[in-house]
Every structure is written in C-alpha cells, then in structure tokens.
C-alpha cells in the first residue's frame, strides 16, 4: 500500500477543468516525479495535496486513513511539507529563524510564557539539520536574502526536511539554478529520500527526472495517464506520455 493515495481528484476553475479525476500515489523512501505539459494540472494537484486548495471530488488516503486537508496547517500536522517554487523564505531573517518560522522554541518557565525564545536550542538543532543534509549554508547568522540561489534553496529544503515526517513536495526546485547547484539540490532530494520520506518532484527537466526519480507519474488534461519506472525509461518515452503521442501510437 502506498504512503499516500489520491483517487479521482476533481478541481475546476470556472469553466476550466484543472483536474478531471486524477489519481496519484506516493511511496515512502522513494522519489516520485510528477510531470506533465503546462496546464496538465500538476500545480493544482500539489496545491490540493498540500492543503493550499480544496478538491471538489475524490479522496486522499494517508497511511490507509482518509484525510482531508482544508489548509496547509492540516497537511503539515500530518507530516507533509512543501518546498515552494518561490521558496517562501523571509529574506531579512537568518537561516535558523527561517527554519523555525512560526515554530520557534520558547524558553522554559516564565520567560517562555512572556515569549522569550530558546535561541541556543534552535541554533544547535539547525546546525544538525543543515549538517545532516550536507547543506552549503555556512553562516547561520546572515540574512538568507544575502545568500546565493543554491543556499536559499537548501534553507528551504532543510526547513521542509526538518519538519516533514511523511512527504515533501518539491515544486520545480531547480528551475532557477545553475548546473552545479542543480546537482546539489538533486543530492539534497536523495538525502531526504534516504531518510524514508516520500519525495514528490515536480519538474520540467526530463534528464533531471530520470536521474533522481524512482517512478514517474504523468498527468495530461487533468488525469494520470501513465506510471513509468524511471530506471528503464527514456526521455522520448516521458515526452511521448506527456504529449499523448504514445497513446496515438498504441491506438
């Protein structure tokens, strides 16, 4: 049984049918790539599964239990985190404060009740998280706005990895990065996967998908049209599934 199973998800925006009964599966400790042409419904599906938007029909099972995420907090409380395309970091805050944003550790006793934070624990734990992921972030007291794109990305990934116990969605994590930094992000993704977390990678880069994914699920016109084992697939096959060329050939 899969860690997360989505069945028959429907979502429309006015007359536009974004998802038309889409299915999706995530396995623990695997990288599942979600691919599809523009408008295929990838972003909508991720928004629904991470609680940012609601579905109109269909059901989501997590660990075999039916769940309903009305908001991102509900998804997070089930151990599901998202690395957003725009990273959703506060540029003026340092990596530690970003990692603990809205989850700050309070001091014990009266000082804690007054809102004083336990900076040392937060910092120590952040060092563990960053080291664990082999992150390039070296300065924990600089604002993340001053850091390179790759370092910002690794702060965002570390934040998700620190809090996710089940699934992390990566929404086009490498779209803005150079070659070396892309390799680093893919490496981060592998490390997260090796911790037993289910990773969902949304990407437009087929070589990247083939390099890091275990399975590839293809969306077209709001439905899942193929589930492909990445190890014995090719760019041609993935592109064919995305554009619908395979169906035509089969037919």
């Amino acid at each position, binding site marked *: 049984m899969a860690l997360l199973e989505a069945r028959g998800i429907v979502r429309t925006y006015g007359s536009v049918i974004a998802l038309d009964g889409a299915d999706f599966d995530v396995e623990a400790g695997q990288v599942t790539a979600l691919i599809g042409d523009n408008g295929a419904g990838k972003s909508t599906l991720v928004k629904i599964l991470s609680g940012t938007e609601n579905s109109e029909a269909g059901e989501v099972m997590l660990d075999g239990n039916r769940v309903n995420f009305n908001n991102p907090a509900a998804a997070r409380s089930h151990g599901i985190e998202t690395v957003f395309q725009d990273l959703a*970091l506060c540029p003026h805050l340092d990596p530690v*404060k970003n990692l603990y944003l809205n989850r700050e550790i309070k001091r014990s006793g009266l000082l804690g009740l007054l809102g004083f934070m336990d900076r040392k624990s937060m910092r120590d734990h952040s060092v563990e998280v960053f080291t664990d992921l082999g992150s390039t972030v070296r300065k924990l007291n600089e604002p993340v706005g*001053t850091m390179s*794109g790759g370092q910002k990305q690794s702060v965002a990934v570390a934040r998700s990895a620190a809090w996710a116990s089940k699934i992390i969605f990566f929404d086009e994590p490498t779209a803005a990065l150079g070659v070396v930094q892309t390799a680093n992000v893919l490496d981060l993704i592998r490390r997260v996967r090796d911790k037993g977390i289910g990773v969902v990678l949304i990407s437009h880069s087929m070589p990247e998908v083939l390099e890091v994914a275990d399975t590839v699920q293809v969306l077209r016109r709001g439905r899942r049209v193929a589930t492909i084992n990445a190890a014995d697939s090719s760019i041609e096959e993935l592109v064919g599934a995305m554009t619908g060329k395979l169906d035509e050939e089969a037919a």
Partner: protein
Amino acid sequence: MSTPMKTSSQDIQDMIKSEQVSIIQRITRVQALQIVLVLLTISIIFSIMAPDAFLTVFNLRSIMMNTAIFAVLGVGATFVIITAGIDLSIGSVLIFSSVISAMVMGNLGASGWTTSLIGLGAAILSGAAWGWLNGVLVAKAKVPPFIVTLGTMGAALGLAQVLTGGIDLYEIPTEMVDTIGFGNLFGELPNLVVLAAVVCLLGGVLLHMTRFGLTTYAVGSNPEACRRVGVKVDRHLIWIYIISGVTAGLAGWMSIAFFQQTSIGGNSMTPLTVIAGVVIGGTSLFGGIGTIFGSVIGLLIPVVLQSGFIIIGVESYWQGVVIGIFLIAAVYIDGKRRERAVRGSGRKPRRLQVGGVQVGSTEKEGIK
C-alpha cells in the same frame, strides 16, 4: 552541496563568497552606528561653536525632555514601519487620547494620583481603540496603511475638536504635572525622560528578544511566506497597530503632564517628525529592518539640531531643511543597501550584482 563530490576549489570559492557577503553585511549592520556618528558629529560641532551653552546640563536636559514624547511615539512607529506599514494618525491619536484623558480626569475632580492613573488608563485605552481600528482596516479590509491612517488622522483630530469645541482643556491634576511633567529622578534626571526610556527599553526587549518581535520582522520581510507556514499575519498586524495606538495614547498623557493642557492645535507635524526620525535611524520603509535604538538616535537628531541652531544663532527654521536632506539620504542609502544585500526570497535574477560585488555567483558556478 554534494559534499562527497565537491572539489576543494569549489569549497574555497564558497568560503570567499561568504566572506564577500559578510563584508556587505558588516557595513549594513553598522548603520545604527553611522547614525550615532552623525549625531556625535553634530553635537561636537555645536559644542565647539558654543562650548558654554550647548554642552550644559540644562541644555542636555532640555534636549532629552524634547525627545521624550517623540521617543515614545517612535517605539510604536518602529514596530509599524518594520511591518512595511505606516501610521500617520499618531499625532491626532495623541491629541484625542489627551482630550479623553483630560475630560475623564476633569470629571473626577482633576486632582490626586488615583485620578491621574485613571487618566493614564483612559489615554491608553482610547489610543488602543484607534490602533485597533487602524489595524483592522489595514489587515482585514486590506486598505493601504497610508490611506487608513490618513483617514483616522483626520477623524481622531476632528472628534477631539468636536468633544472640546476646539478649546483646550486645562484641568490637569497637579500631582501628575509635578511628578511626570517636571519631577526628577536623582535630582537631575527628568521623570518624563525616565518614563520614555522605560518604554523604549520594553519596546526593544519585545522587538529584539521575543517571538512577537521576530514575527514582526518576518511579517515585514515576507508576509506570504509567513502565511504559508501558518503565521496569523492579519492578527499580528492588528496588534502592531494597537501598539502604535497605545504609545500614542501614553504620549498624549505625558504631553498633558508636561504642557499642563491638551494641545489640540499642535502636533500636526508630529507624525512626520517621528516617521522621519525612525527612518533616519535605519528602519526600512520596505519592512523587515529596524531597531528601537536607531529610532531613538534618529529622533534625537532633529531635536539636537534645533537646540544647536538656536544656540549658535542660526534661524531654527533651518532644522526642517537639514532634516529633509537627512531623510532623503537615509531612504536613498536604505534603497542602495537593499539592492545590494537583500534580494527577495524568490528566484534570483541571473545577473551580476550592482557595484561589482558578487552576492551569489550563480553564473560562474553554472558555467564551470
């Protein structure tokens, strides 16, 4: 980075890169220090030009007295501006609160400490009410803070005039005037200044040491990111404007203790003076940056200039000119600083940085 595969040259490049970043950072971090240097320079010039008049206990006391009420307002304004907001209503809320406070105290006989403290409560509550209204309109109704507080600026002053018929109230308890307005601690330190210092200290602790303060910076830095991690941004903003209202209310109470009357006709320039001081002190109008300490220094500058100009015989009208220049320079420097050091959290434009200083050498790494 993929530690196992990484070459040592990349490692070194990374270290160099973080060194470059930290140099920019070091410069930006001393912005408060730069303002202190400006204040010191101005003070030294006046001291040299008028050694027996400027650097006297009497003059320093009056400078501190004249800054005290502005500093209390500045605490609230700093919180608001860090969230990338603005509160233009503080001068009118000050007047409104002082009118309510004076009316309440007048009805209670206008004498005694109990009456004075009830007056303090009335001033703070009426300030908080205006702050709450500002906050709700900004956070929930999504009206831009400039417009909301421009509206409440007019409304609060108008209501104060309606309540009094435009005539200032003079019935202030003597206990409060003698102690808060003109009393001293240890013989020389004005109580008004002590009270302002306590408010600044409390504001500083709240802003710099607590979770509430951290959330304030976060909301100013990237409200959308805060929403996505579950921060109740709207509620936080309402609290921020309430703080600004409370400091304005307290300032209103301090003001009637000092002037022994309400000042309905005064304070039209107060919000602009306070905002200018806060911004000169290094708080960014774009949000996410600012300190209470910087605001206090920034608010001292116009007061010191005015005092100095009077002493050396320059018409004090020049103070407005100089402050105008400082204000524009401060915002210019802030803009440059942001451009260089702090980019948005989103996708970085893949180009070299301004001034030849490499913040993120994305391109170079990519090419390698």
